[in-house]
């Protein structure tokens, strides 16, 4: 593997056929590949998450990251768009599912695609990755420290976030969950609760909880970055992808 890739910003069809911005990274050194939809975190469609998309492509997987805040602020800086989305109370789950479905369709239509697609999301995107895995035909679902997959947010929360564990029966693919032992969103107890729910639903899953790591331990540009947890987490991710999407 040479790690050769092509990466660019494109317009894809999202929810209800809306034209939305997306960052696409495709390996150019393989004849066929699995694919992954990358769901950005609450701070938005930012440079570090684009870097994650490129990392997948460098390792042989096509990746698309839809800009989930494109409608809120077309062309705006990611942090400005994220601020608008937050002020508006977040974005509806139905719209997220539609946008990820558009990204999934784009990936499946690539001439080099093997037809298998997974999803991965970080922070708020972790919950959204679980959600889309319950509603779309995805071969693998990776949840990186997503809060409120289980557990109901307090009533005063202005964002429209509801737990999605109740939809677990809809999961068609395996689940990989990566968490920090020091995280409070989700807490280790909530991770245990999610594991129990998946067990009860008869789903195949792998959970890893890393010591000395809290929320956002993959974020290499933030003080929350934990190199050991992140490196081990990346190894888990690529092992999981090899098993689920090829």
């Amino acid at each position: 593997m040479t790690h050769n890739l092509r990466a660019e910003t494109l317009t894809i069809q999202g929810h209800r056929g809306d034209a939305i911005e997306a960052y696409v990274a495709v390996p150019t050194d393989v004849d066929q590949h699995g694919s992954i939809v990358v769901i950005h975190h609450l701070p938005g469609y930012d440079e570090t998450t684009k870097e994650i998309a490129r990392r997948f492509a460098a390792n042989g997987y096509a990746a698309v990251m839809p800009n989930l805040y494109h409608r809120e602020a077309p062309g705006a800086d990611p942090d400005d768009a994220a601020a608008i989305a937050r002020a508006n109370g977040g974005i509806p789950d139905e719209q997220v599912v539609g946008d990820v479905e558009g990204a999934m369709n784009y990936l499946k239509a690539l001439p080099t695609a093997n037809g298998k697609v997974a999803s991965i999301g970080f922070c708020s995107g972790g919950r959204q990755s679980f959600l889309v895995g319950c509603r779309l035909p995805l071969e693998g679902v990776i949840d990186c420290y997503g809060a409120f997959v289980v557990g109901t947010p307090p009533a005063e929360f202005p964002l429209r976030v509801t737990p999605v564990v109740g939809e677990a029966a809809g999961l068609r693919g395996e689940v990989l969950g990566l968490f920090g032992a020091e995280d409070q969103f989700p807490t280790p107890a909530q991770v245990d609760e999610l594991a129990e729910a998946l067990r009860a639903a008869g789903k195949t899953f792998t959970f890893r909880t890393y010591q000395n790591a809290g929320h956002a331990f993959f974020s290499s540009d933030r003080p929350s970055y934990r190199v050991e947890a992140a490196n081990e987490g990346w190894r888990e991710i690529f092992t999981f992808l090899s098993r689920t999407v090829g």
Partner: protein
Amino acid sequence: MCTYQTETLRLRASAKTPRGWVSMTDASVYFDHPVHFPATHALMIDVLNTSGGGVERVGLEMDAVSARNLAETILRALDNAPASLLDDSVV
């Protein structure tokens, strides 16, 4: 923390943006992961105008002590100003 906890309010204000002075209509205040401030968590203030389909925003990220000092300083400045001048600023 990634709590999603966000306080929002309507306001009347002007702010200096890279495009010059603009009117602002809303604000969000929250304690969460900053974009630029070098800490895991920070108190964030977004002053916004989302009318007309565009985005006008001035963002602030600061540590908790700075945020409390700023809030107290604002209240002190208002308390020290003559009431007639405070009325004068309300259009």
